[in-house]
C-alpha cells in the first residue's frame, strides 16, 4: 500500500506542472493585458509613462518563461501574488471565499449521496416498476435541465411567491449574529439561504449517481453468488442489502472524483445566480475583470483539489475491494 501511494503521488507531479503551465498560458493569451485593470486599481490616468512604470513594478516586462518560473516559485511557497482588482493578496481573497463554497459543496455532496444511493438501489430492486420509471424519468430530466434554468424557475415559482421567506441572494441576513440572536436563529437563517442553491446543485448531480447506482446494482443482482445466496434461502433483504449492495457500491465509489470536479465547475453558475460569496463567484469575477493572479490561483487550486479527490477515491477503492492489487 505504501509503495502504491508513493507511486500515485509521484504521478501527480507531472500533472500538476502541466496544469500550472495550462492555466498560466491561457492567461497570456489575453489581448490588452492586465494594465487596464491595474490603472483603474491605482487610480491612474491613461498616461503611457504610468503604464510602463506599472508593468515594470509588476514584472510584466520580463520574458514570459521568466514570469512563469517566478510565479511557480512563489506558488510553491504559498504566495499567489496580489489581486489587481481587490488590491489584496490573492491568498486572502481566496481564503475568505473558500469556506462559503466548502460549506455549500459538502452539504450538497452529502445530500446527493443520501438521496441518490437509496433511489438507485430501490429502482434496481424493483426494476420496471412505477417507481423505477419515475426515478429513471427524474434522472433523465436532471441530466438535461440546465442548472440555471432550474434556478430561475425556483426563484420565480418558489422564492418570489414565498413573500420573502426564501431568500434568493447571499449567504445570511446582515446583522443576524450569534451574540444577539443565539445560535438557533443563526442556523435557521443560514439554512434558509441554502435552500435554493442546494436544491439546484443536488438536482443536477443526483442524476448521474442514481443511474450509476441503479445499473451497478442490476449488474450485481445477476451474479451467480446472488443466486446462490437466494438458493440458500436467505431473506431477500439480506441478499440485497448485505450481499449485493457491498459489491454494487464499488463502481459508484470510482465516479465520486468526477462528481466532485463537476460540482466545483458548476459552482460558477450556481454561486453567480444566488450571489453566494464563494470561490465560483470570485473566480467568475476574476475572469471577467482579467484579474489574472486570482484566476490562475483558483484554476490551480481546483485542479489540486480534484487530484486529491481522485487520489482519495483510488485509495478507497483499493481499500474496499481486496481483489484489486496495487503493485
Amino acid at each position, binding site marked *: 500500500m505504501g509503495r502504491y501511494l508513493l507511486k500515485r503521488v509521484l504521478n501527480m507531479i507531472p500533472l500538476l506542472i502541466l496544469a500550472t503551465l495550462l492555466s498560466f498560458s491561457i492567461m497570456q493569451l489575453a489581448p490588452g493585458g492586465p494594465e487596464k485593470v491595474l490603472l483603474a486599481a491605482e487610480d491612474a490616468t491613461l498616461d503611457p509613462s504610468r503604464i510602463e512604470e506599472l508593468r515594470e513594478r509588476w514584472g510584466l516586462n520580463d520574458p514570459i518563461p521568466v514570469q512563469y518560473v517566478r510565479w511557480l516559485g512563489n506558488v510553491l511557497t504559498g504566495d499567489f501574488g496580489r489581486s489587481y482588482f481587490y488590491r489584496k493578496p490573492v491568498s486572502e481573497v481566496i481564503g475568505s471565499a473558500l469556506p462559503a463554497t466548502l460549506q455549500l459543496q459538502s452539504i450538497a455532496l452529502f445530500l446527493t449521496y443520501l438521496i441518490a444511493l437509496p433511489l438507485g438501489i430501490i429502482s434496481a430492486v424493483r426494476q420496471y416498476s412505477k417507481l423505477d420509471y419515475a426515478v429513471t424519468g427524474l434522472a433523465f430530466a436532471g441530466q438535461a435541465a440546465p442548472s440555471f434554468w432550474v434556478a430561475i424557475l425556483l426563484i420565480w415559482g418558489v422564492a418570489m411567491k414565498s413573500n420573502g421567506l426564501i431568500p434568493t441572494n447571499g449567504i445570511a441576513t446582515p446583522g443576524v449574529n450569534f451574540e444577539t440572536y443565539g445560535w438557533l436563529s443563526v442556523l435557521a437563517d443560514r439554512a434558509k439561504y441554502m435552500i435554493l442553491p442546494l436544491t439546484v446543485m443536488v438536482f443536477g448531480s443526483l442524476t448521474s449517481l442514481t443511474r450509476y447506482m441503479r445499473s451497478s446494482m442490476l449488474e450485481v443482482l445477476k451474479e451467480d453468488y446472488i443466486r446462490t445466496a437466494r438458493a440458500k434461502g436467505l431473506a431477500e433483504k439480506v441478499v440485497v442489502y448485505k450481499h449485493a449492495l457491498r459489491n454494487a457500491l464499488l463502481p459508484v465509489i470510482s465516479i465520486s472524483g468526477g462528481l466532485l*470536479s463537476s460540482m466545483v465547475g*458548476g459552482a460558477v453558475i450556481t454561486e453567480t445566480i444566488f450571489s453566494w460569496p464563494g470561490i465560483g463567484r470570485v473566480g467568475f469575477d476574476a475572469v471577467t475583470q482579467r484579474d489574472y493572479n486570482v484566476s490562475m490561483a483558483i484554476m490551480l487550486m*481546483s485542479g489540486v483539489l480534484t487530484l486529491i479527490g481522485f487520489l482519495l477515491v483510488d485509495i478507497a477503492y483499493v481499500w474496499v475491494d481486496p481483489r484489486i492489487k496495487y503493485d
Partner: protein
Amino acid sequence: MAAPHLNTEAEEQLQGLAREESQFRQFVRRFARNKLAVVGLVILIIFYAVAIFAPFIASEPLDARVNLAERFQPPGSPGHPLGTDNLGRDLLSRMIWGSRISLSVGFVAMGVAVLLGTLVGSIAGYYGGTWIDIILMRIAEAIDVIPVFFLLVTVVSVLEPSVYNIMIVIGLTSWPGLAYIVRGQFLSLRQRDFTEASRAMGATDARLIFRHILPNAVAPIIVSATLRIGGAILSEAGLSFLGLGAPPPAVSWGQILSVSRTFLKQAPWLMFWPGLAIFITVLAFNFVGDGIRDALDPKLKR
C-alpha cells in the same frame, strides 16, 4: 470462411457492402424499436429543420426593430404566440433565430472533440505503454483535472467573444473523455489477430491505425459523441447565460434566458420557453444516444 476460392477484388468489395448493409439494417430495426429514441430523433429533425429554414419561418427578421409599444406582450397575444420581449420583439422569432447557434454548437464542438479525441486516443492506444502514450495521456488528464466549466469560462472570457470561438473552445476542453475511450478500444484491438495479420503483411503504422483498427472502434465513438452533444449545448447556454456568449445581434437560447432574469416579474415567459427548448433538445440527444448505444450493442442494454 467457406472453402477457399479465388475472389476478384470487386466481388470481395460487393460482399463486404452487402454485409455492412445488413448490419446497418439490423441497427435501424433495433433503433426503431426504441420508442424514446425515435421520439428524440423526430424532435431533433423538427428542431433542425426549423433552424435551417429560420428565414422562412420566423415572422420577424433577426435584426427586428425595437418596438417599445409592444413590449412584454404575454403569450397568446395577436401575432405573438409566445409573447414579446423587453424590446417588443416577437419571442418565437427570437427563439427560432436563436436555435441556429444553440443547435450548431453541439455538432461543431463535438466535431472538434471527436477529431482531437480520436487522434490522440488512437495514437496513445496504438503505442500504449510507450512514452508517446504517457505524454498524451498526461496532457489529457491535465485538462481533465481542471473543472471543465471553470476552464471554459476562463478561456472564453480571455478570447474575443464570438460564436466560433465558443464552439471551438468547448470542443477543445471536452476531448479527453473521448480520447480515453478510443485509447481503451485500441489497447484491446491492437492485439487482435487481424491487426497482427496486417502488420505481418507489412502495413505501416498509419495504415494500421486508420484503416484497420479505427473502423472497429467507431461504434463507441459515435455513442459517446452523441451523448456528449447535450453537454456541449448546455455549456454554450451556460456561457451565454453568464454573459460570455456571442455578442448581439447574434442570439441564442442561453442569451434570451440571461436577459430574462431581469424581467422575471413582468415577463416570466421570457425565461420559460428558451429554457424548455434547451431542456427538450438535450433530452432528445440523450434519448437518441442511448438508442444508438442499445442498437449497436444489445448486450449493453441497461
